[in-house]
């Protein structure tokens, strides 16, 4: 087990597209363990993509369970998502994001509120997930990494946006 080094922008690897995982073996399991340990050691640390440690494979880990305000919210706990694919999404919401690969900057990004997702688990078995809110945001942020996109590519101005549209029955 080891905490891996997080690469930071402008490292060119952060702008490259990662490759599909094809081999499920002990080396992969070991790498996933190290990636988990790296995420847990990081600041904030609700998600990490393999590309953030310079490994150009389509692997992300997301775990929003430690985020203070979300303890009671619905989420899937620790998720290892290999070759993940968002198959459906609904709703748009602005939220603030930062990134371990872009230290000392946070900004507003629009993401889908609800997503349906398929991915392989660490044994290579396909799983499907439905998720919303902060967890869905984290997954979208990490999958972007696999496509060479940073939250900086999706920043929206904080100016000129009035109140967020409310859902019915809220208030």
């Amino acid at each position, binding site marked *: 087990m080891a905490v891996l080094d997080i690469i930071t922008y402008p490292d060119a690897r952060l702008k490259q597209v990662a490759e599909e995982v094809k081999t499920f073996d002990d080396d992969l399991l070991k790498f996933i363990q190290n990636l988990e340990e790296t995420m847990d050691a990081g600041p904030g640390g609700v998600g990490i993509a393999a590309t953030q440690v310079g490994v150009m494979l389509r692997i992300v880990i997301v775990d929003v369970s430690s985020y203070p305000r979300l303890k009671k919210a619905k989420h899937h706990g620790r998720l290892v998502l290999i070759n993940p694919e968002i198959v459906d999404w609904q709703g748009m919401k602005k939220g603030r994001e930062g990134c371990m690969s872009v230290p000392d900057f946070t900004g507003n990004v629009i993401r889908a509120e609800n997503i349906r997702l398929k991915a392989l688990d660490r044994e290579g078995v396909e799983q499907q997930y439905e998720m919303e809110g902060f967890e869905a945001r984290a997954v979208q942020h990490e999958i972007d990494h696999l496509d060479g996109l940073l939250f900086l590519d999706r920043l929206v101005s904080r100016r000129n946006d*009035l109140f967020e549209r409310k859902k019915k029955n809220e208030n």
Partner: protein
Amino acid sequence: MTDKKNKWYMVTLIGKDRPAIVSHVTAALYEGGCNLGETSMMRLGGNFSIMMMVEFPGRTKELHDVLVTVTDSLDLHLHIDKIEAKLHQHLIPDVRISVYGADRAGIVSKVTSVLAEAGLNILDLESDVAGDKDKPLYIMHIEGQATEGIKSLQSALQIVKDENGIDAELAEIDTLIG
């Protein structure tokens, strides 16, 4: 690049808006051996305002000399303060407050004084006057830190709304670090 020996200044420039102010000013700074830090530049009611952190090896007077030709030619008022530069220490806001209402004197003061008492530390405030001449509308966005919790700010904001007939909304900001 940042050199520890260099000094930091806050340069403030204000003048009537016209095209290419930013490019002219920053070219003069670059040619004069300056490095920019964080800046804010925007048009406010037909004026253009610039506040920028400038790193420069020389003294205030020398920085003034670097800029004065271009600022005179663009009719910009120039002001320079020596500052301490605290880069790479951004505070992350945890609350966003939007306020709007018919424009009248005292909105900002009333809202911010009540919120300050309730523990709001403002990191960023922007406001606009919209509507038209006969019915001006005031719109303000604040991002900050709720040092005494969200509930304290929520109740404070409710009081300001009720007392002043303005609309206001507060939302917690969850920052995802991925």
